[in-house]
């Protein structure tokens, strides 16, 4: 692997500005890494020609002394973002052959900032899944392996391709979307940083919708400061998205002062679940200790509605999805399977186009919105959602940020947990509440399991207070000193030593 692919975005940016290497060389190094790691199935559409063309344009701008905040930085794009004239499928057959005539607001901002597109990454079909197993393009392999066990592991999901691409040094950074944990859970499984911003921070325009009231785009990187940089480029008010917040984008990197003296860090008692591995418990305790050492004050907080978050999510998200996915009907774009009547065409098209998990959620969603069930399910779920948000609002009267594990388990093997959807849904137990409450949350790699798999810690912030979230995350990142890399046992040992376990 070329050293150029091992840089952080900040390092690459300095190198480009100092003319140590060109944007073309940087892009080529990543395209080579992508080719070498193709077996991970992280990218489903590679765009090398476009990458090189964009890199050349970046080089020209850099030569003139111009260039945006992401000038020349090669990125991977989750295939849920519509990219103009580039195949966009949401990893569903129903969008076979779909080339959008428009560019999503978030990706347009990236290109405007000078970023280079390497390709589109794999995901669970329509972002519905926690293991990348529901993709119509096949599963993604996690670049990490358990020590002494060569079975391929899941990268998490739904942004599994983006997480794997960043972890395996195929991209300097990637963007994903997070509806119930789809950025943070794969970030945790793959040992990278992932941010779900406050709902409304990034425009949803041009992002294939899963659950509109929960979906948020966010960055996936190998450092917290890279995530702050990438988010700053992605975020901002968009008049084309009515739910986008009309707020200026703060300088997230400037907020990372390294000083968290006086901050109160909430530790929710309800985030201990049965059967959670000891390593995760231990890491969480370490996290609390590191922040305390850095001058923050841990406070026990209670989020009593937490246990209802997952069932609430699995009513609201499928309800919205069942309606959002109605447009895939074979009439105007994507797959069409002809039938004898309009209804027959719908049925055949949707039967052939959607996978099992998508069908399951469309059915659940249709059910909970049906006459006679709406009040019992959907309306009640919305009420609980309000209570969950209130839990957080009350907690934030006592603390400035909340620290939790990102997931209740490390990455599992491909094929494991496929039989029971509910077990799969439990992956999102710690991540879903932030989506329901619309709060910003970050996962960063902070430790390893005994068999060498990365584990993430999550920091949840107040709405539109990503600055405090990044500030705490930066300190936690330094304390955790996570340097392990996939397939590099040496790195594992160093990290274990650094953690002092």
């Amino acid at each position, binding site marked *: 692997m070329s050293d150029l692919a091992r840089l952080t975005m900040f390092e690459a940016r300095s190198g480009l500005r100092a003319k140590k290497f060109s944007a073309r060389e940087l892009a080529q190094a990543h395209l080579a890494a992508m080719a070498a790691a193709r077996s991970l199935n992280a990218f489903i559409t590679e765009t090398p020609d476009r990458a090189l063309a964009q890199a050349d344009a970046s080089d020209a701008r850099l030569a003139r002394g111009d260039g945006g905040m992401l000038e020349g930085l090669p990125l991977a794009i989750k295939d849920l973002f519509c990219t103009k004239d580039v195949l966009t499928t949401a990893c569903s057959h129903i969008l076979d052959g779909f080339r959008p005539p428009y560019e999503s607001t978030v990706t347009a901002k990236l290109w405007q900032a000078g970023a280079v597109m390497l390709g589109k990454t794999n995901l669970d079909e329509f972002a519905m899944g926690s293991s990348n197993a529901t993709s119509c393009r096949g599963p993604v392999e996690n670049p990490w392996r358990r020590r002494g066990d060569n079975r391929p592991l899941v990268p998490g999901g739904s942004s599994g391709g983006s997480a794997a691409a960043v972890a395996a040094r195929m991209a300097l950074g990637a963007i994903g979307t997070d509806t119930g944990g789809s950025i943070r859970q794969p970030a945790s499984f793959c040992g990278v940083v992932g941010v779900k911003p406050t709902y409304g921070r990034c425009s949803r*325009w041009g992002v294939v*919708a899963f659950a509109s009231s929960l979906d948020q785009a966010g960055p996936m990187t190998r450092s917290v400061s890279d995530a702050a940089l990438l988010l700053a480029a992605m975020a901002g008010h968009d*008049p084309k998205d009515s739910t986008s917040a009309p707020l200026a984008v703060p300088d997230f990197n400037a907020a990372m002062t390294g000083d968290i003296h006086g901050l109160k860090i909430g530790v929710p008692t309800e985030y201990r679940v049965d059967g959670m591995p000891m390593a995760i418990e231990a890491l969480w305790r370490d996290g609390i200790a590191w922040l305390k050492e850095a001058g923050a004050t841990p406070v026990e907080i209670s989020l009593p509605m937490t246990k209802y978050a997952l069932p609430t999510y699995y009513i609201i998200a499928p309800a919205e999805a069942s*309606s959002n*996915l*109605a447009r895939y*009907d074979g009439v105007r*774009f994507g797959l069409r399977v002809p039938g004898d009547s309009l209804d027959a065409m719908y049925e055949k098209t949707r039967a052939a186009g959607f996978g099992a998990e998508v069908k399951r959620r469309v059915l659940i969603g249709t059910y909970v*919105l049906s006459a006679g069930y709406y009040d019992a399910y959907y309306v009640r779920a919305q009420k609980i959602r309000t209570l969950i948000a209130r839990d957080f609002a009350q907690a934030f009267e006592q603390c400035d940020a909340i620290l939790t594990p990102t997931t209740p388990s490390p990455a599992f093997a491909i094929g494991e947990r496929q039989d029971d959807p509910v077990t799969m849904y439990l992956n999102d137990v710690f991540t879903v509440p932030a989506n329901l409450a619309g709060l910003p949350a970050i996962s960063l790699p902070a430790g390893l399991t005994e068999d060498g798999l990365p584990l993430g810690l999550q920091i949840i912030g107040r709405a539109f207070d990503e600055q405090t979230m990044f500030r705490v995350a930066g300190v936690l990142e330094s304390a955790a000193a996570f340097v392990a890399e996939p397939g590099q046992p040496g790195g594992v040992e160093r990290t274990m030593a650094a953690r002092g376990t």
Partner: protein
Amino acid sequence: MSKLIQGQTGEWEVVIGLEAHAQIVSDAKLFSGAATSFGAEPNTQVSTVDAAFPGMLPVINRHCVEQAVKTGLGLKARINLVSVFDRKNYFYADLPAGYQISQYKSPIVGKGELMLSMADGEMRRIGITRLHLEQDAGKSLHDRHPALTYVDLNRAGVGLMEIVSEPDLRSAEEAGAYLRKLRSILRYLGTCDGNMEEGSLRCDCNVSVRRPGAELGTRTEIKNVNSVRFVMQAIDYEARRQVAILEDGGSVIQETRLFDPHRSETRPMRTKENDYDYRYFPDPDLLPLELDAAWVESVRRSLPELPDAKKARFVSELGLTPYDADVLVAEKSHADYFETVAKGRNARLAAHWVSVELVGALNEIGAGIDTSPISPAALGQLLDLIEDRTISGRIAKDVFAVMLETGQGAVALVEERGLRQVTDNDAIASAIDAVFAAHADKVAEYRSGKDKLYGFFVGQVMKAMGGKANPGLLNELLKNKLTR
């Protein structure tokens, strides 16, 4: 006039509520910037939002909101400062997203009212239940291909106001009057052009029958009727159909029906279309619509004078009869034309000339008042000639006919054709003398008591004078000479 239907077993009362779908006058659609003009080539006024491409999001058109608020205020209705957009989910080829964005539980406009002037001079208050904003669907074209259906999305996403009345209407005539009045108010406000033939105003009719004073009967809904005449025919047919069923001992099925204008009858829609569960829920792509009370007040202050107020003013200030005022205010263009003509003139005379002579003549040549060959100023000059006795009312009609045809001014025409009324006593007297000389026998008959011959003399004198004799003077002189 009884509104009741006479059945075999007694009288029945019809109960009607109307849901009007009024297309909002706006250059852009309700949630996209695409254009809205009628009659464009298929699929030329469609954005990726209207076609529900992946990732496309709706953004409310503020102008459409203002139009809905204006309409609500025009119907003296409560404006809800917070309203919510919901999704109405169903699959159809001309509904690209698989849902229609509408307002279900929290509409932008609540209860209001509309006043009807009935033929007997009574005013009837018809309650408005609500007005809400929603998107129109596209159009399925079944006649372009033997086996396939084509879809035109030009109309998809166009803003509609659904205006729902209380079940306060009691006859097809009342329903027709309601719809005409509603259309008139919408046109005054400029919020809907009301062109039913272009589909910019369509109507669903809820109809039930009952014994006078009894509980409400089971209703049927007749969908998408597109003219006032058809609304009245559909209701008439449907009410009689229901009476016949009930009198036969049957019961009315609650269902959705379609009106067939060729046969003037209603038929049930396929039952499948009755079975939709629309799975309404708040659209998560849109925030609740919040209005500022001060802004609503500013809209209220900017409202134009509406038909009822205009009518009252025409009666109290201009001295028109309520009937004449009603006729004039029904169409704003007529009322405006009238006001221009009537300014500084005899209002009653102006009312007659506008609503009878002008509108009648325009109907005959198939023109509207906006395209009238005679301008209000030109008509005003004609009325001035009548008022100052330059010409008689009868001559005025002839002059008017020529004006309509040639576009010439009244003053010039009267001069050119020598139509000026003769008010010279001697000229009229000598004409009378000449007629008397020629018809001495008739004069004798008259004087011996045959009064009916009076008209004969008037006619003869007028004929002799080319119709230009001042009728008053002629009468005066003729009577004098006859009784002498």
